[in-house]
């Protein structure tokens, strides 16, 4: 290729023009370089990027110096196109070309073209991976981005982008400390979507939700150009506020004006990005064209299972309680099409169970693996069947943006025979068992730093402070073996042992283990053994054991109810018992109304509250 000599005149003119027009202060330039306001910097800015080679000016805190260095570098002779600034920093180059009068020789960025086929890509999807209670770092879900073509219905080969910390240790304490306090570097990485689909959907059993953004071809190019610049780049990872949600929001901010995060919030949650995307518009058009559910292996299993008729479901149950399923006389007597239907449900059942059991070499794992081999052989011996048709979704899973906002302020009035007062609850994250459960693990609760203050007769006191509280009913959806896990809960923080005592909090760590059963479509009963250790109150000792029975009812979308009967005994043999009926009404994204009645020993307590979610 013939390379034109750089025009010195053009370079000087464009440098002057860039300075005169203050391009270094332009919001787009600041976004491309990830500059944030910084008090300690003479320019007032510092980039969040920590990789040295992301900067052409040898400084991370001078937007003007970087602007000048970039313009000069754009004009350098092209010897190796792929290593030239115009190919390494395409977004910067394209933007500067749009703002200045650059006359540049042509250049072919072959590596970029191999990375992404922009001729055929016309869609960008932001993907939400639902929360995962087995890993604290995944409680709040995760974000991915992918590029696709509307003409290609198979998304497994889509180019997908992830953002994550580069882990250097597996110690759980270090993992948490480094994650929160900036001990890890992080960056964007790319892979084909089949890998993400496998990791999240097959291994972690997490449903994915793909939000198809309404972007122009030019906007899609801007995102692709900038991601190309970011692939080798490192940031410092902070779990709370500089996480995947934060960086994908920054990326989309190149082309979406509406804010996708809460500017003054000290943390950024993946869910918030999707809620903001659905709420905001661009020139009166929605930012999202469509939302697609990508079912995990577990969800696929349920979907197929509930499409079986009752007789088939009973046979499946019978098979799972036997050995050598395909040799069972009742299976062998089935016509081919029914065998095929059952085998496909069993494929999903086995992989769901194996994912739950992990890497163990237990007898159960070996048995399932053996049955899978036999099923595969049997399936090969039967006729091939045509591609699966689109199924109706019996499970009616709701996308995550329908859920309530994660931050809560609740004001309640509380009254008993002797006195009355007020409660103020502040919960930064995330949800309780009575809230709406779109995009969340059903019948579970997850909250952190959940503070409740009380005011009785003008006296303020802390009534409860849950540093961490997690509860999962783990209700079996089927009656099949292995689909009935333990219910569990864990709670650490301050509590009030006697709800009629208004100033007697104690530090406590409690846990529970039990089972839940579905009584009907609307009602779930849960039995749980409880144990806690705590600081002493009224000479009642430092440990308590007991149990509780709960009835959770989802009466209709606007009314959820929970009745809990609790009986405990301290190790010094002091018994307590309580029965509580809690209700949540309306269950809208921004608010609900709570009403509860509680009898604690012989006292009746009534609480009515208004919740605001944001």
């Amino acid at each position, binding site marked *: 290729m013939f390379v034109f000599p750089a025009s010195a005149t053009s370079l000087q003119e464009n440098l002057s023009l860039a300075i005169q027009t203050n391009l270094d202060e332009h919001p787009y330039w600041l976004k491309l370089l990830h500059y944030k306001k910084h008090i300690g910097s003479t320019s007032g800015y510092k980039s969040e990027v920590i990789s040295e080679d992301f900067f052409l000016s040898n400084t991370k805190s001078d937007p003007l110096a970087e602007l000048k260095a970039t313009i000069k570098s754009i004009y350098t002779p092209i010897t190796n196109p792929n290593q030239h600034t115009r190919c390494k920093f395409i977004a910067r180059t394209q933007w500067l070309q749009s703002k200045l009068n650059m006359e540049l020789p042509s250049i072919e960025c072959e590596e970029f073209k191999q990375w992404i086929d922009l001729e055929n890509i016309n869609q960008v999807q932001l993907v939400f991976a639902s929360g995962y209670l087995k890993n604290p770092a995944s409680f709040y879900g995760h974000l991915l981005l992918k590029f696709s073509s509307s003409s290609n219905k*198979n998304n497994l080969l889509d180019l997908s982008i992830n953002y994550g910390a580069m882990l250097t240790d597996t110690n759980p304490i270090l993992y948490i400390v480094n994650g929160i306090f900036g001990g890890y570097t992080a960056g964007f990485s790319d892979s084909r979507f*089949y890998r993400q689909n*496998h990791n999240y959907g097959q291994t972690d059993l997490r449903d994915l939700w793909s939000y198809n953004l309404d972007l122009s071809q030019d906007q899609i190019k801007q995102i692709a150009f900038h991601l190309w610049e970011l692939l080798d780049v490192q940031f410092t990872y902070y779990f709370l506020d500089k996480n995947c949600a934060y960086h994908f929001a920054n990326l989309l901010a190149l082309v979406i004006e509406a804010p996708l995060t809460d500017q003054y919030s000290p943390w950024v949650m993946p869910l918030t990005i999707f809620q903001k995307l659905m709420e905001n518009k661009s020139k009166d058009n929605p930012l999202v064209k469509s939302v697609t559910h990508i079912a995990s292996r577990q969800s696929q299993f349920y979907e197929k299972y509930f499409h079986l008729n009752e007789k088939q479901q009973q046979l499946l149950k019978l098979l799972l309680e036997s050995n050598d399923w395909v040799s069972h006389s009742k299976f062998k007597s089935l016509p081919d099409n029914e065998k095929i239907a059952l085998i496909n449900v069993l494929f999903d059942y086995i992989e769901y169970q194996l994912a739950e059991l992990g890497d163990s070499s237990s007898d159960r794992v070996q048995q399932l693996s053996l049955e899978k081999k036999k099923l595969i052989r049997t*399936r090969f011996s039967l006729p091939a069947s045509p591609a699966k048709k689109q199924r109706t979704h019996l499970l009616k899973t709701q996308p995550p943006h329908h859920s309530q906002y994660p931050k809560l302020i609740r004001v309640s009035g509380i009254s008993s025979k002797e006195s009355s007062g007020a409660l103020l609850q502040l919960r930064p994250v995330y949800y309780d068992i009575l809230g709406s459960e779109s995009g969340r693990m059903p019948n579970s609760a997850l909250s952190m730093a959940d503070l409740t203050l009380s005011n009785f007769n003008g006296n303020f006191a802390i009534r409860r402070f849950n540093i961490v509280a997690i509860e999962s009913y783990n209700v079996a959806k089927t009656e099949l073996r292995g689909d009935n896990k333990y219910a569990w809960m864990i709670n650490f923080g301050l509590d009030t042992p006697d709800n009629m005592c208004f100033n007697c909090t104690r530090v406590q760590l409690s846990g529970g283990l039990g089972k839940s059963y579905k009584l009907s479509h609307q009602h779930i009963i849960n039995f749980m053994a409880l144990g806690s250790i705590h600081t002493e109150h009224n000479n009642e000792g430092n440990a308590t054991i007991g149990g509780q029975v709960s009835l959770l009812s989802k009466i209709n979308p606007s009314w959820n109810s929970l009745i809990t009967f609790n009986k405990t005994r301290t190790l010094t043999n002091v018994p307590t018992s309580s029965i509580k009926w809690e209700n949540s009404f309306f269950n809208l994204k921004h608010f609900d109304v709570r009403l509860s009645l509680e009898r604690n020993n012989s006292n009746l307590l009534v609480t009515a509250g208004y919740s605001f979610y944001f």
Partner: protein
Amino acid sequence: MKKLILSALAAATLVGTNISAVQAEKINPWRDCGIGALIFPSVPAGAVISNIIWDLGTTAVTSNASSPDTCEGETVKVAQFIQETFKPLEEETANGSGEHVTAMLNILGCEENVHNSIIKNVRLEYATKLESTEDTQKPQALYNAVIHNTADVCSAS
């Protein structure tokens, strides 16, 4: 790093190479292009074991980035795909269709109108290997059946 990512991702760009049976015979992606090839360069059997235990992912292809003639191109990419998605892919192969099967044939540049006939033949060939193949070798057996049955009918375009 970008170069490394490129080598792993060029798979689905579907540009270039014809898939020839000759090439397929020359390259064993598990033996020649994986982590194991670095760890056990002179012990092919060890290389195979190492790859299956660890990965045939980006790192594996990356490790052979200095041998672009042997470890790039659609055959290696499809081997990688088969290794990473083997469970659903094997199920779909048994069924005769599915999204993983389609994606696999797309990597190899197979036109949609030949998918059914290819997978029919792959299904027959792979089924004959099931009894005699160890679990750890099954992805390779499926790969061999796929390459054998696409050699004359698919090309990246």
